[in-house]
């Protein structure tokens, strides 16, 4: 069970998002509401084009919704400009991307340090914090490795270290296991679960990957820009499993 209703860190109410203009406009989101508290791990599932990434962009204060309200750590974002939203992201949100988005020329440690560089952290402190973050995701042995020298799972763990190094209250992960094999994917999901339960981060993960279900507290199902329901992973599995088949998203 989540405790979002009691003390939400991230709250979105009746979000609508219209992309494009005129006859070509598309309602990417239609009245989506999400609430996320410290320690929650929320999984958003749905087919391609259901509005998952748009929801993630809006919750991450990267896109502004056409209608509705997003509150981050109690702050309404509706009247914030791009720079204020960027500052909000810096202070409260860590991102994990599907294709890792590591800087290819930087070592693992430098990639993590870069996250602190945008926060004007002192070089020495940034280095220590980066090493600590990489240690926490089990990558102490990869400090000097370039992304191309690491496996996909290791790269994604570097991305997680980069997301958590500034101690954000919220982690938003976009298909974090999509490019990973079974073992690497499980490792990444364990890390996200650990962040929620041990570090008390509010974690929201968008995924097609059924492997993520056991790690989530709650599953939001999306289709056509709407959140159809919020279920526990067990409920989701029951409602989406045809007898004789394995669960799939």
């Amino acid at each position: 069970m989540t405790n979002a209703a009691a003390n939400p860190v991230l709250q979105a109410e009746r979000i609508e998002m219209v992309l494009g203009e005129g006859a070509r406009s598309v309602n990417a989101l239609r009245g989506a509401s999400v609430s996320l508290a410290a320690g929650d791990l929320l999984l958003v599932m749905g087919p391609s084009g259901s509005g998952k990434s748009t929801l993630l962009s809006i919750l991450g204060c990267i896109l502004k919704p056409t209608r509705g309200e997003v509150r981050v750590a109690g702050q309404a974002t509706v009247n914030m400009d791009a720079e204020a939203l960027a500052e909000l992201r810096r202070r409260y949100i860590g991102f994990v991307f599907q294709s890792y988005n590591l800087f290819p020329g930087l070592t693992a440690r430098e990639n993590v340090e870069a996250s602190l560089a945008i926060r004007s952290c002192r070089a020495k402190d940034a280095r220590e914090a980066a090493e600590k973050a990489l240690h926490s995701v089990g990558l102490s042995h990869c400090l000097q490795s370039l992304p191309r020298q690491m496996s996909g799972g290791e790269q994604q763990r570097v991305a997680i270290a980069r997301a958590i190094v500034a101690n954000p209250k919220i982690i938003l992960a976009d298909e974090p296991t999509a490019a990973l094999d079974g073992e690497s994917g499980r490792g990444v999901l364990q890390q996200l679960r650990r962040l929620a339960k041990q570090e008390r981060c509010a974690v929201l993960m968008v995924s097609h990957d059924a492997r993520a279900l056991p790690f989530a507290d709650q599953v939001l199902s999306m289709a056509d820009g709407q959140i159809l329901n919020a279920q526990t992973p067990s409920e989701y599995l029951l409602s989406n499993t045809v007898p004789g088949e394995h669960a799939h998203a």
Partner: protein
Amino acid sequence: MIATIAFKNLVHEPARFLATAAGIGLSLVLVTVQLGLLFGFDRTISAIIDNAKADLWIVPKGTAAFDDPSFLETNQKYAAAVVPGVRRIKPLVVGFAEWRKPAGGSTSVIIIGSDPRHATVDPWNVSSGQLHDLRAPDAVAIDVSYAPQLGVGKRGDIANVEGLHARVALTTNGIRSFTTSPYVFTALSQARAFLNADPSRSSYLAVELAQGADAQRVRERLAGKLPTVEVLTPAEFRARNVERWLLDTGAGIALLTGTAIAVLVGAVIMTQSLYTTVNDYRREFATFRAMGSSKGFLTSVVACQAGICTLAGFALALLGNLAVMAISAAWSLPIEISPTLILTLCGLAALMSVAATFAAAAKVARVDPASVFAQ
């Protein structure tokens, strides 16, 4: 960390980085060569005036350039000599003559004759012989870079000028004429003989002032006393010379236009190279923006990348310019690459770097951070 991010972003793809640096380097070499040509011509055009020992010049009215002389009236030297503040009047004879090569054939030369006892326009960059060697009858000085054109190239060689013997008594290296006619230095009397001029006539009078004399006041006195001439400072004579060759001739205008175009093209190529390089890293910048980076941080990274590319390009340009200098020296090309030009180039590169930073930073500021998410 900003510098590290910028540097490693660039060197991560060495081929692209080198291509950018090479583009910038070539642009800067292009600008250097063209500006070097302009400065070189400016120096060549004014070389005689710059190396002459004159506090003031008395020139026939309407003189357009040093290389385009006419004769002063005979009595003017004496009239000028008695003006208070004048220490000495040093006549100079300048004129075109036909130079006959010992092996046959001829070419046009510019004879410059001055009194070897009073330094006026002595040859410089002497490579063989002594200045007093020019006091001997029929002695002349030539520049070795013109040896093929003159048919002589070393001391003792003999040619013929307007039917008179001309014996090479001194050689120089690097005294080039703006026209196709080489300079030939000789004594005043010998020059008059070559040019078949009356012994009392001069093309110009170089004025040497008495110690402590006020140049402006002496100039006014000379102008008052000699109404049919012009009295010019060396700077004015130089400017008139440059104006004549650069602004009144097709070659000069072509050179100026070529220089302007080269600077423009070089600047555009350089800015474009920098802009494209920075633009190639949009994905990285979008990631930074999504992570919450401020525009200021992104601009710093962009500026740093532009600076690094500019420095690398500038270093390549310096190497290229060394090659140009070597070729210029070997072929006696009038390309002057001076420390001033290098500093100018440095300033230009910095300016282009700033321009590219602004252009790229504006683009980066508009990068869509949402593009980092899977669609």
